[in-house]
C-alpha cells in the first residue's frame, strides 16, 4: 500500500503525514513535489497536507490548485483514487473544484491553534469507517482561513447526500454555534465529494495519531483508509 504526500512551497504538514504513514501505519510513502507532471509510482491514496502553500497569497490554496501535479491528482480522483486534503489541503481541494464551497477568514480574525471537539457525522466513508457514527473526538485545528462557506443550495445537497463528515461540537456531541471555532457554515469541519473518494478536513489527524502525543484519536482516519484499501476497493488505477 503506497501513499503519496504532495508538497508545495510553503507546505508544512508533510513530515507529520509522512511520519504517521511510515512509522505508525507501516505503509510505503513518498513525497511528491508540486512541479511533477506525473506520478512516478502507483499510489493508493494521495494526501494534500496542511501548511501555507505559496504563502496563502491571494486566497488560501488558490495558487497551488493549478500546480502541474494537480492535473494528476484530479485524474487520480476521477478514476476513484482516494484523496485526503488536510487543512490547507482542504482549501486547495475547494479551489481546484474537487470539493464544493470556499474558505473565508475565521470569524474572529485570529489564527486558531488548539484542540477542538468534532462529531463524526458519517462513518461510512473510506476515511472514517474506524470511527463510531456520532463519535466525538478531540483533534487539533490550526488555521486562519478556516471558515467553510457554501451557498444554501450546495449545503442542502451536502446534507441530502450525507457529504458532511465532521462537525464542530461540544465534548458530548452537541452541535451549537458556541462550539464553532471559526464561523464555518453549519459547524462543518469536513466534507466528502458525492462519489465518496475525496475528503477535505480542517482538523489535523496527523498531529494526534500516537499515544506519546497524549492523543491518538486521529490515527483512525489512517487506519480507516488502510482498512478500506485492504478490502480490495478501487484504488484509482
Amino acid at each position, binding site marked *: 500500500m503506497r501513499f503519496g504526500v504532495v508538497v508545495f512551497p510553503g507546505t508544512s504538514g508533510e513530515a507529520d503525514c509522512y511520519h504517521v504513514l511510515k512509522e505508525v501505519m507501516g505503509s510505503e510513502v513518498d513525497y511528491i513535489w508540486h512541479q511533477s507532471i506525473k506520478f512516478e509510482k502507483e499510489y493508493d491514496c494521495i494526501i494534500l497536507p496542511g501548511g501555507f502553500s505559496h504563502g496563502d497569497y*491571494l486566497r488560501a490554496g*488558490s495558487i497551488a490548485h*493549478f500546480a502541474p501535479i494537480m492535473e494528476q491528482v484530479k485524474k487520480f480522483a476521477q478514476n476513484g483514487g482516494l484523496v485526503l486534503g488536510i487543512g490547507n489541503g482542504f482549501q486547495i481541494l475547494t479551489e481546484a473544484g474537487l470539493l464544493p464551497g*470556499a474558505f473565508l477568514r475565521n*470569524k474572529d*480574525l485570529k489564527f486558531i491553534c488548539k484542540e477542538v471537539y468534532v462529531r463524526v457525522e458519517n462513518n461510512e466513508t473510506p476515511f472514517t469507517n474506524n470511527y463510531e457514527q456520532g463519535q466525538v473526538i478531540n483533534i487539533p485545528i490550526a488555521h486562519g482561513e478556516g471558515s467553510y*462557506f*457554501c451557498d444554501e443550495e450546495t449545503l442542502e445537497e451536502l446534507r441530502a447526500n450525507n457529504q458532511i463528515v465532521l462537525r464542530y461540537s461540544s465534548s458530548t456531541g452537541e452541535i451549537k454555534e458556541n462550539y464553532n471555532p471559526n464561523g464555518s457554515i453549519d459547524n462543518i469541519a469536513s466534507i466528502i465529494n458525492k462519489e465518496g473518494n475525496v475528503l477535505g478536513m480542517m482538523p489535523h489527524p496527523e498531529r494526534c495519531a500516537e499515544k506519546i502525543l497524549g492523543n491518538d484519536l486521529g490515527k483512525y482516519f489512517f487506519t480507516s483508509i488502510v482498512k478500506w484499501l485492504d478490502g480490495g476497493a478501487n484504488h484509482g488505477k
Partner: protein
Amino acid sequence: MYKALVYVTLKPSILDPQGNAVQVGLNSLGFDNVKDVRIGKYLEVTLEAEDKASALAQTEEMCKKLLANPVIENYRFDLMEV
C-alpha cells in the same frame, strides 16, 4: 500595453469580519456616521495584448480562473492603455 485595475469584493451575502472590525475602529475614532465597511482586494495587472478587446477578454478570464473565487467573491475591472 494595457493595465487592468481589478477590484475583487466579497459578495454582499458574505459576512466580512475584517470590515466589521474596521467599522468598529472608525466608530470608536468618533466617526459615528460609519454604518458599514467592506474590505476587498485591488490588483493592478499590466499585460501585453493585440488590442483592447483581447486585453478585456484575457482579464475577464484571469478573474474567473484565479483572481476571484466565484463562490464568495465578485469582481470588476477598468482597463486602460499605457
